[in-house]
């Protein structure tokens, strides 16, 4: 009985964890988790719900592919906003108006999802974001937008819903099921919150999988590889590293590591801080006080960072960044070189190296064992990042996967595998964190170690710490700290009716069990009497079941509205405006060019374009309408040029 090393389960009050009793949805084992309803629910998609951008993909007969939006984009900003007129915007439209509407534009919700209000990370965010945050009823985070409070999963659900609409429009079929990716380092609460966001968006979430794992799947799917790979994922908000072994169509995760607060936005922050500091030095004014200025800085910083991946220096120009009143204004003008940026963020990149080393160590592997390094996330376009990865692993990063799209493709592959019961490919995932219980002294006793392949189970025997102790409280925790308090509490229950005996005499066997779906079951058994208590631990997203249902219903109402109005309207309006303009210019342009050979061709073409657009307007064909915009714009500029240069 080697496992009898146990510390002691201690009958402690739940001090330090706040009022979580009602929140942690602890269900009786008999009820069990409701299995996925794999009915005839339309197409199955994969969604990469990113911090800054999101992407949706599907597997069809040609294999995995990204589904473009109606305007042709492959990714969409994970931004949600409510305009002054009360209109809800998601994606590009929301991002475009962020500068003028910073308080009602929400970005980076992923950084807050599934976190408690008083967590360090949330508290740190409060001063950095341009929107208002407040404490929710379950110690969760709420955001205010358009004068209304939103839970984080609700915000994410708007992005997920948009992805679903993009897919449905493109496929011409309803979409009911999805696999959604999260950073490998997400804990169960964050995963659950993401799953809940999917449910609010009306999606049956088949599985939550890790982004690096998805990337590996997309990289190796159907290639018959036999090798060990490292996935280096530096995205907008998080850094993840995973080591996988691929063989016989099996993708086995060997280890994972990461940092949930290390990503592109931290790079942006560095640039912003540098700009603000410089501005303060010059003018003695702290731009942080002005939310609109911060938003402009954020945009400029991100833009400069992206441009520096291909240029050696960029100019940052922000005129009228600060108004002194009386029509007087201050401008910000600054040059940033690639070398200067490297200096600003060098330590952030170095941090990733230490995490890579740890992950290799966890996998019991040397750098030389790695046959391929796959880069994921927009930040890996940065030359300094690529160089660092190359230097560390000693091999150039693998080309041929698209860093922005590979995760969504992997999610789509897993969705496809699960929904078709594939026998050729299997993903063997792991638990991302230690799981265990709190023992005497407020310590965390690990029962299932991180990076254990699931499904799995493990048992450990504990004893009482007090004479005559009648009951033990089992507090189920997840995390890496040896201090129970610093880890996430997933649930708790009490095993009572223990025999009155001197301390250390009563033995309690605690068993953890994780299914392939990642559902954790915990049971405690009095070894002597066989008395047993079992719970299914469902991580808490910060929302109750009722709230989720209510939000999903509300979302449904909103969907009906947005389908009839929404984006469709915007496109129609734009096409109509273009048509009006062209109608105005065409009679002026016609006599000027009608006599020439080229002129006749051009006019014919213009007429055709107009005809096509008018037809699309009548048919209310959204895709056709958005396809018309470019030709119409070209026609308009042609007519414009004719009138300006040849007219008069």
């Amino acid at each position, binding site marked *: 009985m080697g496992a009898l090393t146990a510390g002691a389960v201690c009958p402690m009050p739940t001090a330090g964890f706040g009022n979580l009793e009602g929140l942690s949805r602890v269900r009786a084992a008999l009820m069990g988790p409701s*299995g996925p309803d794999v009915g005839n629910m339309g197409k199955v998609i994969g969604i990469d719900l990113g911090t800054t951008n999101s992407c949706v993909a599907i597997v069809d007969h040609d294999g995995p592919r990204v589904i473009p939006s109606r305007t042709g984009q492959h990714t969409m900003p994970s931004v949600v906003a409510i305009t002054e007129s009360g209109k809800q915007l998601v994606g590009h439209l929301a991002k475009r108006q962020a500068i003028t509407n910073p308080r009602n534009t929400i970005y980076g919700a992923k950084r807050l999802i599934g976190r408690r209000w008083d967590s360090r990370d949330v508290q740190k965010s409060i001063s950095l974001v341009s929107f208002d945050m407040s404490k929710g009823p379950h110690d969760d985070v709420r955001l205010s937008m358009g004068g209304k409070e939103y839970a984080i999963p609700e915000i994410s659900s708007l992005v997920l819903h948009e992805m679903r609409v993009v897919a449905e429009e493109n496929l011409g079929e309803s979409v009911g099921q999805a696999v959604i990716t999260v950073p490998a380092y997400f804990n169960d609460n964050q995963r659950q919150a993401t799953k809940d966001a999917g449910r609010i968006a009306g999606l049956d979430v088949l599985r939550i999988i890790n982004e690096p794992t998805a990337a590996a799947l997309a990289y190796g799917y159907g290639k018959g590889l036999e090798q060990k790979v490292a996935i280096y994922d530096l995205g907008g908000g998080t850094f993840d590293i995973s080591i996988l072994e691929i063989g016989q169509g*099996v993708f086995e995760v060997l280890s994972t590591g990461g940092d949930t607060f290390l990503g592109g936005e931290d790079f942006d922050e560095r640039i912003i801080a540098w700009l603000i500091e410089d501005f303060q030095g010059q003018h003695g004014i702290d731009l942080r006080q002005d939310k609109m200025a911060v938003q402009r800085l954020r945009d400029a910083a991100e833009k400069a960072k992206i441009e520096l991946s291909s240029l050696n220096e960029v100019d940052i120009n922000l005129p009228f960044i600060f108004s002194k009143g009386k029509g007087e204004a201050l401008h910000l003008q600054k040059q940033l070189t690639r070398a200067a940026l490297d200096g600003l963020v060098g330590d952030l990149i170095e941090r990733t190296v230490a995490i890579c080393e740890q992950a290799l160590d966890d996998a019991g592997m040397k750098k030389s064992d790695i046959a391929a390094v796959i880069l994921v996330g927009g930040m890996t376009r940065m030359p300094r990042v690529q160089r660092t990865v190359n230097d560390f692993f000693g091999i150039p990063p693998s080309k041929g996967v698209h860093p922005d799209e590979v995760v969504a493709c992997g999610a789509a592959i897993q969705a496809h595998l699960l929904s078709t*019961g594939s026998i050729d490919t299997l993903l063997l995932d792991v638990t991302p964190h230690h799981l265990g219980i709190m023992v005497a002294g407020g310590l965390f006793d690990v029962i299932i170690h991180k990076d254990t392949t699931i499904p799995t189970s493990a048992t450990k025997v504990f004893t009482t710490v007090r004479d005559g102790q009648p009951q033990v409280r089992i507090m189920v925790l997840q995390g890496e700290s040896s201090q129970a308090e610093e880890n996430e509490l997933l649930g708790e229950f009490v095993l009572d009716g223990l025999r009155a005996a001197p301390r250390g005499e009563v033995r309690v066997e605690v068993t953890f069990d994780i299914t392939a779906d990642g559902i954790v079951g915990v049971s405690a058994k009095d070894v002597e009497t066989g008395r047993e208590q079992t719970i299914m631990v469902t991580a808490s997203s910060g929302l109750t079941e009722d709230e989720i249902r209510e939000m999903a219903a509300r979302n449904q109402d909103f969907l009906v509205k947005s389908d009839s109005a929404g984006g469709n309207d915007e496109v129609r309006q734009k096409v109509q405006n273009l048509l009006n303009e062209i109608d105005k210019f065409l009679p002026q342009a016609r006599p000027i060019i009608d006599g020439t050979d080229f002129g006749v061709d051009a006019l014919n073409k213009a007429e055709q374009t107009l005809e096509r657009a008018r037809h699309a307007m009548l048919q209310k064909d959204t895709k056709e309408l958005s396809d018309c915009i470019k030709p119409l714009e070209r026609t308009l500029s042609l007519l414009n040029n004719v009138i300006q240069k040849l007219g008069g």
Partner: protein
Amino acid sequence: MVELGRESLLTLAPVLRADSDLKSLQLNAQEGFIISQVDGLTPAGVLCDLLAMDETTLIIALLRLEKLGVVRWARRNTGPKGVRQSADDTAAQRVIADSVAEDPALTEACDLSRDERLLILKAEGSLAGTHWEVLGIGGDATGAEVKRAYFVASKSFHPDRFFGRDLGSFRGRLDKIFRGVKLAYDTLSREESRKSYHAAHPPPVELNQKSEGISGAVQSPAPSSTRATTVPRGESADDKAARLEKRRQQILEERRSKRLSKHASSAGQAAGGRKRKAEEIYQLGLAQLNRGNVFAAVASFKLAMTYDETNERYQNAFAEANGGALLERARQVAGEAEDAVASGKSGDAGRLFSRAFEMVPHRAEYAVRAAEQLLAAGKTSEALRFATQAVEVSPNRPSAHVAKAAVLENTGDLRAALVALEKAQTLDASDSHVTKSIKRLMKRLR
């Protein structure tokens, strides 16, 4: 695969396909053994008893054979045309069909086909074996092979494979199987734990080949598998009737003893139950051995060992019977080889003889025959290897030296050939053939 609906494969008779080329297929010993009993009449459920195999093992093997195009399935009462089904045989089948034990899980309401259930139940059963058996690997498996076996087994039994289906009791079984596979892999993939496990649980040595493993149904055939195929041929109607009658008797007898053991084991569920069961199976094995069914006996002794790992009697009986089985199989292979010789295929014959020799490496005569045939087929270097081994195994066998000499002469090493011939002559001076050859060689040397 043939569409079988929900009907149990056990009630169907496998039929050998006339067009299948058994010789070109890499069948393993077990498969060869099964084929030897497939006559197009006997349902799979009856074959289980004949072969002393459990249902799932047999079904899995038959499904693989079906995939390879070796067998197809015939309905029980619509056997292949032109083959008369004896009344005795159907009676035997009826008796057996009535008593084919049904695991209640096979009829449980859930979203799995019967074959899937059989596979899962079989895999669950195999967890009782050693880690070697669970992964289907031998003691010499390399790290990569262990990993491969683990991946293949995971792919077959990971619960995700059946995602979204109502699995009933099978969900728990799959979880258990995957954990067992993972445990076996974890133990055998690490140097230290593998060493200590190896010491406590020696890997299977049977046939020098890998045990079938949990994922036998999906694993590709081992490249080094042995082959033993004997199909009843040229049998008269009377012979056939006699054979069927004999088989019926056998089946009934084995059924009886099985039933007995079942009663006994249910009586003693607690401690000692396993031991008692082991002893019954052992006795069954002895009975099978007496009847000359050495293969069934091997299976029984092996099963007895899984119930009582420490009993030396079982281990000895197994070792002995296994040796006998090997010899028997080697004989079958050699018989095939002689057929090949008769039809002038010396290459095939050489390969078969060498296989027979590898099964029973103390039998120099197979090595001699292998050398002769390989030489005839022009494979000189291989021929020399077997001739040399023949001499090593039986230095007093003149034919070994003669074979070696023939090969050496062919390679042009006349002196060495002469030495070998002279050795043969000292062992057996009466062979005029040898004397003639010596003279011929001396002439050439001069």
